[in-house]
């Protein structure tokens, strides 16, 4: 590693102030810090610091997404051959999945990181690591058959409008990956909903509807088994189908303490409560499905584990997190059942609560402020 370090040290002066490549210093810095944790020391305040940094945090989230990604890749192939009525071994299915998914991942990262680098450069900042996660989340919420140019513009939209206009990582109001998904959903509804997009190069005769699709048209009898929905051998966005794989990811996030378990569990609680309320009401078939089925269909689990927990766009106070999570689950199921135009209530519910998260925090913090004021008043009386 000494050779590499020496090489970087030799190149460094070119990128520093006054060097001929100073304009590219953010880019150099990004690569340098990727290879080597910097030699910076604590100059003020505490003299020792925790070993965790933003890169470590983000790489853990990416690791947590790997089960869902691998299952998704296999499922893309599996659904394709299933629709053609062909049975194949693992590797051909996985191979086809790779063919479909890898280009989407590459497009997402290249476009997103390109924009991130450009913005960091123009602002003279260091490149933020946030997109390492967003860049993987975006492919996982795409249908397998999405055209690559759509991935590119959705990613560009999400990074520029969803994040950079607010000031970059840490300042955004909406989750960037969901912004990308929502952009496609509203801009190209034909390609993002209906029955044909959820299976790669589907055979025409095969239905291919997702469980949510079936329910929208009251085909409750055509719902796959609970087991299939839990394992994820159903059509859907690349990473969302397998609740099992997502639970594995959730365990990584909760175990390392990087994802908020409070939010995950309260989303689940919110979804279950709304599902049970609908059971009580029972006005149509959709309302009568067992509440737990909401958790294993569509993007509910994926949203709860990877999207709702985004610390930047979620509520920041402990109490606020419970409220925020609960309302996400609650409203997601509400939208699913009540609004036939939007089969995937989870996406809209999270975006809605992203917008309301600061308000929730505001009231939680106000309660603390009032408590402090009350202390003074009690004292003044006494």
């Amino acid at each position, binding site marked *: *590693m000494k050779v*590499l*370090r020496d090489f970087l040290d030799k190149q460094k002066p070119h990128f520093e102030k006054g060097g001929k490549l100073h304009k590219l210093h953010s880019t150099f810095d990004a690569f340098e*810090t990727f*290879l*080597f*944790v*910097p*030699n*910076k*020391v*604590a*100059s*003020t*305040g*505490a*003299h*020792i*610091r*925790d*070993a*965790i*940094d*933003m*890169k*470590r*945090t983000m*790489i*853990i989230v990416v690791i947590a997404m790997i089960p869902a990604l691998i299952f998704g890749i296999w499922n893309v192939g599996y659904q394709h051959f299933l629709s053609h009525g062909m049975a194949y071994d693992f590797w051909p299915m996985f191979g086809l999945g790779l063919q479909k998914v890898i280009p989407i991942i590459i497009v997402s990262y290249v476009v997103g990181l390109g924009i991130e680098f450009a913005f960091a450069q123009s602002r003279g900042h*260091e490149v*933020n*690591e*946030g997109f390492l996660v967003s860049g993987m989340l975006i492919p996982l919420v795409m249908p397998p058959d999405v055209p690559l140019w759509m991935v590119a513009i959705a990613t560009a939209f999400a990074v520029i409008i969803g994040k950079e206009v607010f000031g*970059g*990582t*840490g*300042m955004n109001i909406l989750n960037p990956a969901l912004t990308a998904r929502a952009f496609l959903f509203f801009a190209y509804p034909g390609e993002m909903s209906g029955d044909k997009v959820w299976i790669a190069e589907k055979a025409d005769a095969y239905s291919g509807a997702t469980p949510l699709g079936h329910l929208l048209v009251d085909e409750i009898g055509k719902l796959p088994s609970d087991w299939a929905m839990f394992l994820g051998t159903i059509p859907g966005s690349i990473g969302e189908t397998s609740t099992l794989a997502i639970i594995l990811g959730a365990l990584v996030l909760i*175990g*390392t*303490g*990087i994802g*908020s378990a409070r939010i995950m569990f309260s989303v689940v609680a919110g979804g279950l409560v709304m599902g049970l309320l609908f059971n009580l009401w029972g006005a149509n078939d959709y309302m009568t499905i067992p509440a737990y089925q909401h958790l294993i269909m569509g993007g509910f689990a994926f949203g709860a584990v990877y999207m709702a927990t985004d*610390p*930047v766009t*979620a509520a*920041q*106070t*402990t109490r606020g*997190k419970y409220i925020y999570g609960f309302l996400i689950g609650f409203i997601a199921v509400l939208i699913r059942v009540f609004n036939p135009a939007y089969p995937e209530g989870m996406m809209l519910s999270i975006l809605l609560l992203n917008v309301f998260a600061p308000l929730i*925090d505001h009231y939680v*913090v106000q309660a*603390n*402020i009032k*408590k*402090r*004021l009350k*202390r*003074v008043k009690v*004292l003044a009386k006494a």
Partner: protein
Amino acid sequence: MSTVTKIKKGLNINLIGEAEKIIADLKTDHYAIKPIDFNGVFPKMLVKEGDHVKAGTPLFFDKKHEYIKFTSPVSGKVKEIKRGPKRLLLEVKIESDNKDEKIDFGLADPKTLDKEAITEKLLESGLWPMIRQRPYSVIANPKDEPKAIFISTFDTAPLAPDNDLIVHGNGEAFQTGIDALSKLTSGKIHLNLDADATHSKVFTNSKGVQMNYFSGPHPTGNVGVQINKIDPINKGETVWYLYPQDVLSIGRLFLSGHLDPTRIIALTGSEVLRPQYYRTKIGASLEAFTTNNVTKVKKRYISGNVLTGKKIELDGYVGFYHTQITVIPEGNYYEFLGWALPGMKKFSMSKSFPSFLFKNRKYRLDTNLHGGERALVMTGQYEKVFPFDIYPMQLIKAIMVEDIDLMEQLGIYEVDEEDFALCEVVDTSKTNIQEIVRRGIDLMHKEMS
């Protein structure tokens, strides 16, 4: 035993280099009082280089409060008055002549004196600056009426000195100090003890105090946390606080009539060969401690503990309020793919490094930041190590935008930067939180005075 306040939030960081419980006398002729140790003080010199001083001779005073004087700990010669940029007073160096000449402030029994007489003695002898106040963590204003005085008898910071050992055999001086302090407030004197570790009779037999027991991880020993749990500060109120060795000095002033700035200092840290305690005086030179007693690697010398101490150079001096020196390795090295590798030996509060499996491991930590500074992204981290009924992230943001009203509403009167030290340690975004909090407190102090 009365009720124990249990504190759950916080974090104990186990480091290598705890001081062995031996006290040796330190041999040095070099001392310095550092005006920069005192928040909000504008020093005005009273001596020149070359002047002869006795123990207790005023060296400088605070321009804003002329009665607050800072005195020489030893007799000798003013060797140098060191200034920094903009003529900022850094150090007033005294070279001891070993004659031990002392100014006589007069013997007295504090029980027979009134508040004015005691205040006068403390001001004249230069012991007054040991008494500080919340809010703002500045030297107390003798004209104020504090609602209580808090003394934390235990320190929970990494490698912190053991006060039981330090006060051992000094029961009379401690009680006399308490007697003097009790004349300064109409409220209570809170003596806060560690429910599990404080055993010294000096503390437990004290009279005229309310004893409060605490148990929990750092920052439980911080006086700010204890005030928050026992009797939180409201707007317009003042609480005074000081530390056990300060009480001893005050007690000895009344018992002997002389300034006795004796300090027992723990020399700690992984780079110290024989970590132990030393008996010396306030402002002792660092070199006397470290000669032939530190490793050969590039080191950082800290006056205080690793969380809140100040970096000093080898030719520097121990700070006025510090009872500990910590020596740890500097961390100015590059680490290949350090963020991605498992990192078996790294310390982290998060469980993203496997080292969390070894709960009792002691670490040799260096000063590396372990990453670049980023925007505030993660949430809920500070709350895990911040046992106040205060929202730390929101308060920090209020300080960053200098919203005075919001800072006040969110509780800035109750905190000091030391209370945020652990937030700073565990922060993923590597923000210098203590610096921000100090800026906020200073701003508030300026606005309110």
